[in-house]
């Protein structure tokens, strides 16, 4: 019983960052029809940015996270502007190949610069975990859950209640009509990609201190994000949020009761089950967002 509670608590804490990853990817796919293979690299970029700012420049941990997220947004905007804008309207295979190229390039530039040895990020939180009845949770993980949840709510607020968010929703529903209404579609694409990238960087910046930072951490993150997005339905934000928590629970329970070695394979199991029984995802509302 205690073990089960502990697993559930861990999953809840992990789920918020998974949801961030999923929302970022599903936004970009929903609006731009781009399978963003650089998503995992922005995740590891977020983690490395925090590590670099803190260890090399001596920046405060919390400030480092904020800067990392902003840098992630900017990097995302740059990728969209330099690589995707010139091939706008190309078929999905072409954009996928370009994104794969960018993925390989980014990952290996990290490997070149940081080396293959895992880095750990120091945090200002006490080592001793918090005892909550039967379960114990580290302060860092609570911080991750709180910030992750705040970011999820903020993203919802941004999409539902701001002008830019409205423009994003309009573009999602109908590119051409949105353009006719005077929405700058190219700008919306860049903004969406920047937003999605920033969320990925935030997930990396939050999970980097929990685990270790390595150049290949993005691969697994990408695969998890894909699983989350298929689970929730491509382009569905609420689906991605719930999907993120579902994946975290399945992983945590699978690792706890089946085999810890296959923890990262759980996402694939989810993909298979979803494709077998409900290929459009669990929460599909036909082509709507927000």
């Amino acid at each position, binding site marked *: 019983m205690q073990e089960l509670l502990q697993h559930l608590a861990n999953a809840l804490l992990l789920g918020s960052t998974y949801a961030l990853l999923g929302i970022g990817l599903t936004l970009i796919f929903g609006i731009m029809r781009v399978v963003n293979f650089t998503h995992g690299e922005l995740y590891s970029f977020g983690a490395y940015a925090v590590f670099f700012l803190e260890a090399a420049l001596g920046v405060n941990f919390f400030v480092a996270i904020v800067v990392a997220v902003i840098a992630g947004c900017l990097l995302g905007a740059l990728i969209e502007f330099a690589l995707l804008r010139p091939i706008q309207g190309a078929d999905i*295979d072409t954009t996928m190949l370009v994104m794969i190229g960018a993925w*390989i390039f980014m990952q290996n530039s990290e490997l070149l610069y940081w080396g293959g040895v895992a880095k750990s990020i120091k945090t200002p939180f006490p080592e001793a975990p918090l005892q909550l009845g039967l379960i114990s949770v580290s302060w860092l993980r609570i911080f991750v859950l709180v910030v992750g949840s705040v970011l999820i709510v903020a993203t919802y607020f941004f999409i539902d209640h701001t002008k830019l968010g409205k423009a994003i929703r309009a573009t999602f529903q109908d590119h051409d009509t949105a353009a006719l209404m005077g929405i700058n579609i190219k700008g919306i694409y860049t903004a969406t990609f920047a937003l999605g990238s920033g969320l990925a960087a935030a997930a990396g910046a939050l999970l980097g201190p929990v685990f270790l930072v390595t150049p290949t951490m993005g691969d697994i993150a990408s695969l998890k994000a894909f699983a989350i997005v298929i689970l929730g339905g491509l382009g569905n934000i609420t689906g991605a949020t719930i999907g993120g928590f579902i994946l975290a629970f399945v992983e945590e329970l699978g690792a706890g009761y089946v085999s810890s070695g296959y923890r990262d394979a759980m996402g694939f199991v989810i993909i298979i089950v979803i494709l077998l029984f409900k290929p459009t995802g669990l929460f599909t509302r036909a082509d709507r967002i927000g």
Partner: protein
Amino acid sequence: MKRALPIFWLLVLFTLPVWLRDPYFLHITIITAIFIIAAMSLNLLLGYTGQLSLGHVAFFGIGAYASALTSLGFDIELPGGLHIVHAPWPAIAGFPVGIVVAGLCGYMIGKLSFKVRGAYFVIVTISFAEVMRLVALNWVDLTQGPLALNNIPPYSIWLPGIGEYEIWSKVVFFYVVAAVGVACYLIIQRLVQSRIGRAMVALKDNESLAISVGIDVTRYLVLAAVMSAAMAGAAGSLYAHYVKIIDPEIFLFIYTVTMVIMVITGGKGTLAGPIVGGVIFGFLPVVVRSYVAPAVQWMIYGALMIVIVFLLPRGIVPAIEQYFLNRKQADRPPDVAVLADLDAPKS
């Protein structure tokens, strides 16, 4: 001339060991040839059906592991008390086993993901490769995990007069790989020039139209996936019995990237494309590696992939064909129709 060309290339291929006296270059050539077979199999899916398999290395690795385990034997305990002991078989038996097992995996993946296609197929294949890596890493009883499968025996064939002959020689193994490569090339050629191939291309170009004339989409896509996976499995088996040691690293995504870049550089959807791309990217690392770190090599691959998609979206082979076509048209005297047109106002 047209007839002579294939014979010329075959001659070049089969006399290669004579030119390449250096065993290191022969080794590189063999590895390159194995990867070209894998790239050709990827091209069948990517080039002719338009489905990007990003887990192609999974089929390659499955072929390698299945083949190696067939010839090494194993002893595993399955849940439910099922105890399976497999005594080592002759190494050559691993080759068909590798092909069949990889083909079956291709069938399952195809059946599963071609219901929805496109982005889904890409995601399913890439996840599949990662799961295979985890299985190879964690199922230690079967695969030895990170300790790798060692001492994989070389292929052995029974020759009249000589008896059992084990292929240790690089030169002989090169001919084995070359023969498999030529066989795969011919199979793909026959396939894409048949009704089936035309159906696949029709699906790629205009799916709704293809369906409306009665082409069974899922059936043809699954068929392509099975053929493609089986050939990748054959390449994997060759690889396992050539390098004689395989570990879970064989499932790394970077090998899929190598195959993809070979296909798109050479020209997807052309028979010669994967070969041209394969030769370039098989030998390029040898040149590059003496100057830069592996990470830089992969950075160059990533950048090249983007540059090729931007500048040469159809690949080298179609670009060359186009060049010769243009020259032919420039050399040729104007068409009769054009002359008639010029004559018209006078009369």
